[in-house]
């Protein structure tokens, strides 16, 4: 299988970096927003609209779109919390971070969802001209008391999945709250966390308060869902009704942030493990990708071409992507590695980028 997408958007601490595939290689193709952190960047499936979420240190979170493949960008209003929205009683809600943007909801190029810290999901049906808070989730009775921050100060929605056959059926992944599901386009939500384990809670089996670092669904069979969780790797084959722990017993495939799925085979996935939460380092200071081809029953280490000593790279939750057989990941220390054979061999595209928050093939 050959690679099907030929542009790579890399959201970094110092701007958006773009690579393009030439006939033989991936080449640096420029940047946008120099010096401004880009937390997430992606494009509509037809590649006509690019989106860039910014986390500007001084001036707040900003949202930009481009209709000419990045040649020009236009600022649109970022989501806003209303005057009486509160994180907790007495604590006004303000936009802290744009975690993820899901383009092309309902098959409509103008319809997008954005997951934010402090826990609001926002929807726009007019290409960002205005966003509305998805009240059904924000008003969920568990939110004020049982959602909390993981890694950042407040709960954040970092994963959004829209059912390709029923667009009103959606999931979100929230750190820390867990997986939530709606069947009515966002009015009613239910936690879907049975089988997960939150070792950091008094009740590890709590239905709310789980920490999925990233939630993904197989693009063909979306009932097969995976998550790299704070407490291991989990898989569901029934649309998140139940989760199975598929972490590697006594192995390295346990803690991490990212998980990426094969586009065809629902049993194949990749993770980039790290030393668990108290350190957050590359395991034994070596960079390793782990792959399963049997739904998590077994994991193999993939290290060809990756540094195996004096390495401090870890990979954030949106830091890996796939197109065809081509995998790419970007690290916290600014390295980009690419494999054209499903991870068997890796080559570096760049060792000198800023900290990388997201990579997306478009």
């Amino acid at each position, binding site marked *: 299988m050959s690679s099907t997408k030929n542009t790579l958007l890399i959201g970094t601490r110092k701007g958006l970096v773009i690579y393009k595939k030439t006939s033989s290689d991936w080449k640096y193709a420029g940047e946008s927003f120099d010096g401004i952190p880009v937390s997430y960047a992606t494009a509509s499936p037809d590649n006509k609209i690019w989106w860039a979420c910014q986390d500007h*240190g*001084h*001036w*707040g979170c900003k949202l930009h779109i481009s209709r000419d493949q990045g040649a020009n960008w236009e*600022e649109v209003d970022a989501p806003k919390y209303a*005057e009486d929205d509160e994180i907790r009683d007495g604590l006004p809600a303000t936009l802290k971070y744009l975690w993820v943007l899901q383009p092309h909801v309902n098959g409509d190029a103008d319809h997008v969802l954005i997951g934010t810290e402090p826990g609001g999901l926002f929807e726009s049906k007019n290409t960002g001209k205005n966003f509305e808070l998805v009240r059904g989730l924000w008003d969920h009775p568990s939110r004020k008391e049982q959602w909390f921050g993981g890694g950042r100060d407040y709960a954040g929605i970092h994963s959004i999945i829209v059912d390709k056959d029923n667009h009103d059926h959606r999931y979100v992944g929230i750190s820390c709250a867990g997986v939530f599901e709606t069947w009515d386009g966002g009015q009613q939500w239910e936690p879907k966390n049975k089988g997960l384990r939150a070792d950091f809670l008094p009740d590890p089996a709590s239905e709310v308060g789980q920490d999925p670092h990233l939630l993904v669904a197989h693009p063909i069979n979306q009932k097969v869902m995976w998550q790299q969780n704070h407490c291991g790797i989990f898989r569901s084959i029934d649309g998140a009704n139940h989760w199975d722990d598929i972490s590697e017993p006594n192995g390295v495939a346990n803690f991490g942030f990212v998980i990426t799925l094969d586009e065809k085979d629902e049993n194949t996935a990749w993770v980039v493990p790290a030393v668990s939460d108290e350190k957050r380092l590359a395991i034994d200071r070596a960079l390793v990708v782990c792959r399963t081809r049997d739904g998590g029953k077994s994991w193999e280490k993939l290290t060809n071409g990756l540094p195996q000593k004096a390495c401090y790279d870890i990979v954030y939750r949106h830091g890996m992507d796939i197109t065809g057989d081509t995998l790419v990941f970007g690290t916290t220390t600014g390295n980009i590695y690419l494999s054209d054979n499903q991870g068997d061999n890796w080559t570096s595209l760049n060792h000198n980028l800023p900290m990388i928050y997201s990579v997306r093939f478009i």
Partner: protein
Amino acid sequence: MPVVKFTYALKRFYPGLKEVNIKASTVADIVKKLDDIYPRMSSYIIDEQGALRKHVNIFIGNSIIEDKISLADKVSEHDEVYIMQALSGG
């Protein structure tokens, strides 16, 4: 009318930026009315609840404003108001 002057850092987002006179009685009024001249500028200065962003400073003359939550500081006819970027980051 008070005159409003800006940090050079905002020129990146508003290339034609120059000082402006705005009829207003409070700093909050000024920030709100800036949007009429420079669209979305208030969102660069305050959050959606009206509080001054953490890494932005506003001075009236040589004094930093006192109310960073609702920007209720009064301004008078001959005041100079400075919107500045805090020295932070890396």
